[in-house]
């Protein structure tokens, strides 16, 4: 995973914002994990290392000081790679499959694909209501049913949704949602397909 | 006489004891029949073929058979089924599962002195009718209930 650099300003602010308590449970916890965990398959031991964003969210209980959050959010936003062709809408049918698939990126999976050789899934239904036909949806994320119908199908919305899936943290620093593009979980084509699932007027999500 | 039959007889104390019991009427014909693993019945792909193989023909529907099974099974791999027959002279209780790859699940012989009631747990491949067949005084009776099989969710 890429690590984003914290600016000198950010690092200084962090040092002020979080002075260590009497006992360093955090340091103990990290040392313990580094001692106890081992790499397995594609899940390297480096996954235990926090990047700047994870560090800030961890140290602040997911509630960082405003200045730090804005600065880091901006870094995340600037690192989003939008499609070179300027098009955001893919195939909603392919998007539905990606949304349903919950596999990928664990130590049982392979680089860039699942243990069964399929492209990584987005696990979207695990947390979100999306299409009305699937009633077995999770509730960690908000409902996306009728997403386009409610929000409109415009180019700005398409770009926003693409960016949100690529890197949710560019919009809400300590969001629960993974950074699917940034982490290399989903490809540009896959993200476009998911955008279509939410924003193609013909997608069942908008029926 | 096949291998499995002999094993069961040995468990009962040997062939000579079996002959003695059979002669004295202590082992009824039903019990001896159940000792045979009815391959044809167990290979039947649907309830009708299984009933034919069991020699049960077209059993009469009966309200005197009580089946306790879930409306919706939490997991098709382990579904509790309890069957009780209030029909006098019940000799056997048989469980059949319509939409499993093979329909016959189990058949229990009920000797006199044993209550005509058994509980077990079965596998259901999908949402299906579960049938309980009872043989009493040479006649066959049946009841059925649908059990839905759900899916979804990571376990634990």
């Amino acid at each position: 995973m890429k690590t984003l650099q914290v600016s000198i300003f950010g690092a200084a602010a962090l040092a002020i914002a979080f002075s260590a308590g009497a006992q360093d449970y955090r340091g103990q916890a990290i040392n313990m994990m580094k001692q106890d965990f081992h790499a397995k398959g594609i899940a390297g031991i480096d996954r235990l290392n926090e990047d700047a964003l994870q560090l800030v969210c961890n140290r602040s209980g997911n509630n960082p000081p405003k200045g730090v959050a804005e600065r880091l959010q901006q870094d995340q936003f600037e690192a989003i790679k939008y499609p070179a062709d300027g098009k955001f809408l893919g195939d909603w049918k392919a998007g539905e499959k990606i949304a349903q698939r919950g596999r990928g990126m664990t130590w049982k999976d392979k680089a860039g694909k699942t243990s069964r050789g399929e492209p990584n899934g987005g696990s979207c239904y695990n947390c979100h209501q999306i299409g009305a036909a699937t009633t077995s949806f999770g509730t960690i994320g908000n409902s996306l049913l009728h997403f386009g119908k409610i929000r409109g199908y415009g180019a700005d919305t398409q770009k926003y949704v693409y960016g949100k899936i690529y890197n949710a943290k560019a919009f809400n620093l300590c969001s629960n949602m993974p950074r699917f593009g940034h982490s290399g979980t989903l490809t540009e084509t896959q993200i476009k397909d998911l955008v279509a699932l939410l924003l193609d007027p013909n997608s069942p999500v908008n029926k | 006489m096949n291998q499995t039959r002999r094993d069961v007889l040995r468990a009962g104390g040997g062939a000579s004891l079996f002959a003695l019991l059979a002669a004295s009427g202590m082992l009824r014909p039903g019990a001896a029949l159940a000792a045979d693993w009815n391959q044809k019945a167990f290979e039947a792909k649907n309830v009708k073929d299984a009933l034919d193989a069991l020699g049960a023909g077209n059993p009469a529907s009966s309200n005197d058979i009580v089946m306790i099974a879930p409306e919706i099974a939490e997991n098709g791999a382990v579904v509790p089924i309890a069957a009780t027959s209030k029909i006098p002279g019940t000799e056997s209780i048989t469980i059949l599962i319509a939409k499993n790859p093979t329909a016959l699940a189990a058949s229990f012989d009920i000797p006199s002195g044993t209550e005509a009631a058994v509980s077990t747990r079965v596998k259901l491949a999908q949402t299906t009718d579960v049938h309980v067949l009872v043989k009493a005084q040479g006649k066959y009776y049946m009841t059925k209930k649908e059990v839905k099989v759900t899916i979804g969710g990571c376990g634990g």
Partner: protein
Amino acid sequence: MSSIKLRVFVALSGLALACAAQAQQAAAPKKAAAQAKNAASGSKSAIAAEFEKFRGIMEDASPAELFEVKGEELWKTKRGPKNASLEKCDLGLGPGVLKGAYVKLPRYFADAGQMMDAERRIVYCMVTLQGFNEKDLAKQPFSKGRHVPDPVALVTYVAGQSRGMKIAVPQKHAKEREAYKVGETIFNYRAGAWDFSCASCHGEDGKRIRTQDLPNLSSKQGAIAAFQGWPGYRMTGGLMHTLQWRMNDCFRQQRFPEPGYASQTIANLLTYMGVNANGHVYKGPGIKR
């Protein structure tokens, strides 16, 4: 694979696929939706009540008891290079005291100088009393296919000896209080490919993944729900699993590297969860979906 075949496969198969259902739905969204709709035709609470009723019927004669029987035999049999039984193993209440030991674990053990949960302590006893090699025990520590690791049966036996007793994970020793805090920190530590921590799924009330309710382990009620039913017999696959397995598979789904078997990290996490569940009556080894 067609949806029907896949369903037959999963239902009859009993393969322990952690997220089998999801894969199923991925392969057959339409069918899955139809099934879910079917299942939802009653009210949600009616279904929950139905599940509970038949869970109760199964808990009355739980297949977990078979593993208690097996574990008891293992506990009392002289085994290992030192040809010793585990009857002198001290689970925290003195050598050989089993009654109520499980509900007071994890705890700090002065002899080892470390925090230990039930499985970690049993492995420690197997190594120190019986002479087994710790690395060998860690090779295949989870139930799979026909393989039932000895510590799994032993934990089930030991847990059964606390049936009906109150959960009372100690916080007397400074190390025990420290373990709670460190465990809490690990619980909330976000990292890895998807920025997940334990709390991403288990930090809020009333959430679920797909149809699976997620206990909020930072709350008393959620921690009780999680302590209860482990070690558990999973109907899917018909395998007996302990909390070591549960923690391992959670970290897998968290997209983390693999935690060491019976490691300090797990003992600290289980301290956090166990203390949060204190005061509630433990029902003994249970049944899981």
